């Protein structure tokens, strides 16, 4: 299969999968099998692209030219490769998990759920592969629209309200700011292609670059930079697999991925750092990191706490991009992968607890470690990875981010990173601590004492992602080697 | 003075147009509106015919002893415009009849009042 074909297949497969799922809606078993095989096939196709990209190739698929200088094109570069691997790989695990979760939770309208899920993956892959800003913008919007039915899955007034906030914030920022940024870029540079070293250098004045930077940063609502982060906690009304894959991996990562990509390929690191505006963005990201960590500490609902944690972690990546130096970008790129594995593990655990014990509030989770030892062990691993403790993946990305921060003369940013790690400990670790070391309250002992884990379909994926966190620590080098070319001048 | 004499016809035509136009806007009765419209249009015809007249000219029909003719082109245009005018009036009146049949009135304010309270 040629690389061009592979790109097209990788994007189309999930979309076809959606169709297949919709057609097979009558028999759930067949449907779920189909979905799993599509997910696996997609991952394999994405993998076939890896060698070429790793050896410096840039497979390209040029679809058509819409207007002069504006085309629909895909081109795989290292960042996109990494993101697509993460998204498609975790899709398999999430599918497994979703089967267990949706059945265990007796959810309705599962077919619709799986179909839109697949469409969202297709859009995320298209975003990952996009070869220019127009394609990226388009994929971004498709992703927004296709996840709306997932967020409002329960059709309760609460879900609909959350859906409105979700759509409202994501669409208004993307149309109001991101599109404006795209237009301005086109107006200034005459092209929207992603080119190593950026397209703005020599075209945009420093002030224009600064304006553009903020249009992109705030236009990409999915990056959940404060104060446009409200949609993310609201989106938690969705079933947990959605929160896990989309709102910890695909959707939000598309947001930060956009920002990183724009910084590298539109602004160009050198051009951006020469203007000096990137530091303001770095401070905004730093502020978001600290503030959302503080908010996370006050959340009792587990998913809400994880959501605020996500907001904080996303800002790490934005911060890395905003540092506009090699270490920062590498750290951001690594953190896309590391945080994905860590956070999806935590969400899987939250869902597992919900399925097995019907608990959503942290204060109710005393002593559940004895009922769900595997789940809670995985939870500890995920937490530690996010905090950045070796030997877990998260430590590498934080290391590079800290290096990047140190490379700028703004040591306050290093301080922010240190402080936030402490805050991470403060809001994540009490949960397993409470689960293992507190006595269960008497009133909800009806599940009995012995082990009461979630269905295997739920349990296996979460163990695998926890394992992933560990493995990523030892096998960081391939990722590093993959990403290294993008920061070379 | 020559100004006044030379433009008198136009001014009257304009005055008549505005009387018609006023009736179209101000009148609440649907038939009266159409009457206004018809006056408005007829007065525009006067504007055209006036510009076609030439001093000491005669009707543009070839005849012995005449060699100065008024311009026939505006006449042709206005012949067409008259037809358009009567066509519009007829369609308008047909609409008025149907409105009367359905709503029982042809006064604008009563029609609007009906809309508000179904």
């Amino acid at each position, binding site marked *: 299969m040629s690389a061009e074909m592979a790109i097209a297949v990788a994007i189309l497969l999930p979309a076809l999968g959606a169709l297949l799922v919709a057609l097979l809606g009558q028999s759930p078993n067949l449907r779920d099998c189909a979905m799993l095989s599509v997910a696996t096939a997609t991952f394999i196709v994405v993998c076939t692209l890896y060698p070429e990209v790793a050896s410096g190739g840039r497979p390209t698929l040029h679809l058509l030219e819409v207007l002069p200088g504006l085309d629909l094109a895909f081109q795989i570069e290292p960042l996109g490769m990494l993101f697509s691997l993460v998204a498609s790989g975790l899709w398999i695990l999430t599918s497994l998990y979703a089967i267990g979760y949706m059945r265990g939770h007796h959810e309705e309208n599962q077919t619709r759920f799986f179909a839109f899920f697949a469409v969202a993956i297709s859009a995320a892959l298209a975003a990952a592969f996009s070869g220019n800003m127009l394609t990226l913008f388009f994929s971004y919007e498709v992703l927004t629209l296709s996840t709306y039915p997932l967020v409002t899955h329960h059709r309760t007034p609460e879900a609909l309200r959350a859906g409105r906030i979700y759509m409202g914030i994501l669409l208004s920022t993307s149309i109001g700011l991101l599109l404006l940024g795209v237009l301005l870029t086109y107006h200034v540079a005459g092209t929207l292609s992603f080119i190593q070293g950026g397209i703005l250098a020599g075209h945009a004045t420093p002030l224009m670059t600064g304006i553009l930077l903020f249009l992109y940063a705030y236009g990409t609502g999915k990056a959940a930079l404060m104060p446009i982060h409200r949609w993310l906690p609201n989106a938690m009304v969705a079933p947990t697999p959605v929160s896990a894959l989309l709102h910890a991996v695909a959707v939000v990562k598309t947001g930060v991925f956009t920002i990183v990509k724009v910084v590298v390929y539109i602004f160009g690191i050198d051009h951006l750092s020469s203007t000096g505006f990137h530091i303001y963005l770095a401070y905004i990201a730093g502020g978001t990191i600290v503030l959302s960590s503080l908010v996370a500490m006050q959340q009792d609902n587990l998913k809400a706490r994880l959501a605020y944690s996500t907001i904080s972690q996303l800002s790490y990546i934005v911060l890395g991009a905003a540092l506009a130096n090699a270490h920062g970008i590498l750290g951001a790129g690594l953190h896309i992968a590391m945080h994905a594995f860590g956070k999806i593990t935590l969400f899987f655990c939250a869902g597992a607890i919900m399925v097995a014990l019907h608990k959503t509030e942290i204060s109710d989770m005393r002593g559940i470690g004895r009922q769900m030892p595997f789940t809670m062990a995985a939870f500890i691993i995920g937490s530690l990875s996010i905090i950045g403790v070796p030997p877990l993946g998260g430590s590498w990305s934080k290391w590079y981010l800290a290096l990047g921060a140190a490379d700028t003369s703004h040591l306050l940013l290093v301080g922010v990173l240190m402080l936030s790690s402490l805050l991470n400990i403060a809001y994540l670790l009490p949960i397993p601590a409470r689960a293992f070391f507190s006595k269960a309250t008497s009133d909800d002992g009806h599940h009995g004492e012995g082990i009461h884990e979630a269905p295997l379909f739920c349990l296996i994926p979460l163990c695998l992602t926890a394992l992933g966190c560990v493995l990523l620590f030892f096998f960081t080098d391939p990722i590093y080697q993959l990403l290294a070319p993008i920061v070379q001048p | 003075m020559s100004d006044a004499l030379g433009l008198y016809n136009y001014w009257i035509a304009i005055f008549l147009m505005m009387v018609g136009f006023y009736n179209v806007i101000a009148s609440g009765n649907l038939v009266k509106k159409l*009457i206004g419209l018809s006056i408005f249009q007829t007065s525009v015809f006067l504007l055209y015919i006036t510009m076609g007249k030439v001093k000491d000219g005669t009707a543009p029909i070839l005849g012995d002893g005449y060699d100065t003719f008024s*311009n026939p082109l505006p006449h042709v245009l206005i012949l067409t415009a008259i037809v358009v005018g009567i066509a519009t009036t007829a369609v308008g009146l047909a609409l008025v009849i149907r409105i009367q049949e359905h709503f029982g009135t042809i006064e604008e304010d009563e029609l609007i009042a009906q809309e508000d309270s179904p």
Partner: protein
Amino acid sequence: MIHVVDMTLLAFLAIVAIAVTRMTNLFATSVLTGVYSLLMACIFTVLDAVDVAFTEAAVGAGISTVLFLATLSLTTQREKPQRSPNWKALCVALLTGGALVYGTFDMPHFGDPQAPVHQHVGPHYIGVSPTQIGVPNMVTSVLASYRGYDTLGETAVIFTACMAVLLLLQHEKRRDEQSTVEEKPDKEAMAHAMILRVQSKFFIPLILLFGLYVQFHGDFGPGGGFQAGVIFAAGIILYSLVNGLDKARQIIPPNVLHGLVAFGLLLYAGTGLASLFMDGNFLQYRALAEEATHGEHIGILLIELGVGITVATVMTSMFFSFSGRRRS
């Protein structure tokens, strides 16, 4: 002298227009509008536009007044009085009028032979048309030949209006209704008025004859298909006013009437197409015969006939539709 007549008539016009605005009796206003058209026709005559005057008199004072009256008999005769003048409308009208008056100051003066209209295209018609078309009435030459396409459009306008009126007012066919119409004597007919009946017997043939004259004499004097059509229609309308609608409908059945409406337009467009087949452009009547002026004659005759037929039947059918609608 002309100035004095002209100014007096214009002053009359202004008075009538104001009267129309102030009166609330719609019957009176309709009739006054007819008077307005008649006065306008007089002015047109003074301004040498005899064909236009003819048409304005026939349409404005004739057909349109009849249609207004027919409508009023179905709706209401009085306008709801308005207490004060509508200031908003007055402002709009004054503003528009003011703008136009402002525009007049650079206009060529009334009757000025140096005005652009008398310098550019107009003189060509006056100078060349008698030999090129071979018709003494220049208005007819311009109307039927030079701007024959406009006149085709005009015929289409009147045809459109007929379609619109029929769409709006044609009766839905119901079985029960038809029988009752047959039996009931037409109350609105005025056949019992002896004087009217006798006079109409005398006048109607004259009117129709005059219509034919106007139709075929349009090349030489004022007149043509349009005026003739209106006069013809007036004759039929007079007949149906006196003898009742149903009788008139028996003489001219709706099917025939509607067929003729379509036929007139088709005749006009067909003449235009015919010249295509004789290697001319659309509506190029010169191509219809060996000699150019002869071809023009044939063409003009045919299209004037088309216009006449369409106008006469459209006016009649509109009148039938209006008065066929009974007060509910």
